[in-house]
């Protein structure tokens, strides 16, 4: 416990370095592009529009309810995707720094996750705006807004832990990123992002796939983020508890893995 404390303090100690890398990543991504940062919003907006148009025709989904629902889910999925996939490569992206200067390894997954968090915040702010436009201002209660603070914190720690785990694993198995891309693609369709609440309750009753939806670890996070914008209420304490347990498990796994492998990472690159 004390060792983790010292470690976190070391991470905080080089905060100027990893913050500057996050800034640089954002600047590099949008250097010389016409819309600049607007591009990161374009993807969720486009996907949401497509899904709404298609699903309102096929399943007669109500756009006013469905648009914030889908867009919140897509924004979250984008964050998890980025944390996991770009997290895989984060030690290689920082290879030249690792070889030059000793620094706690956790800062490299942190750099990736903070970049993802920036895009997530922008996307989610847009979802809130859309929800308020559709449902009227004052739809989202004060407790719901406040509940977003622990939700974001849990999400950040969750993303960081996932990125760290996959980064360490990718140093050993170079193709893990490609495998993860495929796995995430499949997992997307096994997660209630584009399925409305009605379809989900139907699916939960089916024995074949129902249990996947019930056990999907991303569901509590989806609920935490969708409740405020879709129902105007904060998610239930049970949801927060589930998300906390999942985050804690990932965090413990990440801490144990980093502690065991950190020393060896530079030798395997």
């Amino acid at each position, binding site marked *: 416990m004390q060792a983790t404390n010292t470690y976190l303090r070391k991470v905080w100690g*080089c905060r*100027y*370095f990893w913050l*500057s890398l996050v800034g*640089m990543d954002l600047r590099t991504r949008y250097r010389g592009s016409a819309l600049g940062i607007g591009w990161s919003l374009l993807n969720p907006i486009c996907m949401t529009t497509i899904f709404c148009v298609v699903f309102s025709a096929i399943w007669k989904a109500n756009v006013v309810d469905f648009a914030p629902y889908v867009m919140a889910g897509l924004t979250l999925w984008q964050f998890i995707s980025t944390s996991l996939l770009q997290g895989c490569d984060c030690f290689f992206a920082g290879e030249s720094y690792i*070889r*030059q*200067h*000793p620094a706690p390894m956790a800062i490299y997954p942190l750099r990736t996750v903070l970049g993802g968090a920036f895009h997530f915040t922008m996307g989610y702010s847009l979802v809130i705006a859309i929800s308020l436009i559709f449902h009227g201002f004052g739809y989202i209660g004060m407790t719901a807004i406040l509940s977003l603070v622990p939700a974001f914190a849990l999400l950040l720690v969750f993303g960081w832990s996932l990125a760290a785990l996959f980064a360490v694993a990718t140093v050993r198995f170079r193709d893990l990123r490609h495998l993860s891309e495929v796995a995430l693609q499949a997992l997307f369709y096994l997660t209630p992002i584009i399925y409305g609440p009605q379809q989900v309750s139907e699916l939960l009753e089916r024995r074949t796939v129902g249990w996947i939806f019930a056990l999907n670890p991303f569901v509590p996070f989806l609920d935490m983020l969708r409740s405020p914008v879709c129902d105007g209420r904060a998610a239930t304490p049970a949801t927060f508890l589930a998300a906390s347990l999942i985050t804690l498990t990932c965090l413990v796994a990440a801490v144990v893995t980093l502690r065991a492998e950190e020393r060896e990472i530079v*030798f395997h690159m």
Partner: protein
Amino acid sequence: MSRIVLDGVGLTFRVRRHVRMSLKDYVVRQMFRRSINPILEVHALSGVDMKIERGDRVGIVGHNGAGKSTLLRTLAGIYKPSHGRLTVEGRVSSLFDLTLGFEMDATGWENISYRSYLQGETPKTVRAKRNAIAEFSELGDFLNTPVRYYSAGMMVRLGFSIATTIEPEILLVDEVLSAGDLSFQEKARERMRSMMDRAHLMVMVSHDLVSLAKICNRAVWLDHGHMMMAGPTDQVVAAYKAAATAGQAKAAA
């Protein structure tokens, strides 16, 4: 009080014979089995004992692959020793490969910031030093273009200018005595000399035995990771030279 103490320090890498593989290879070709993918133990350093106090300038000599750069990186904290105990007290500044650690798509100015932060500077101190760094590098307007368009010499100039603005307590130098073109080399040599004077203690790797003898008061001779000899520079260098020429004579015979 700056000092470095090595107490039986050893560094052993355990690598598999086949590395950089995919998960498919690992499973299908059974690379997890010792018989197919044996573990190789590389003893990069063994049993290094040294005490370096304030005022010491230590040179490390040895053949290629003896472990000189490995030892230096272990002192810097990049490699953690697998045996023994390493104590490093004082702020470490290292001059290793100067062209590493550039973000290619960022401009010269931005890279000055990133690398300074990596060295432990804060935004305030960086702002104070930026112009001095830019002036020393003599890159002028090129600092506004992305580093990807720099020549190798320009990158070395920039890297050197950034790396040498630190106030060193412990200075670790890995064969960085040649940087850039002729006019810059003179400036660089002068700055290196001033850094070495200001540093509390210095450890340096070089194949240039003449400069080493001039700069260092102590030397260490490494051979295949083992410390063959440590002591006053002229004695160690003489022993190393004798062994090297004896080896050449044996090979020629």
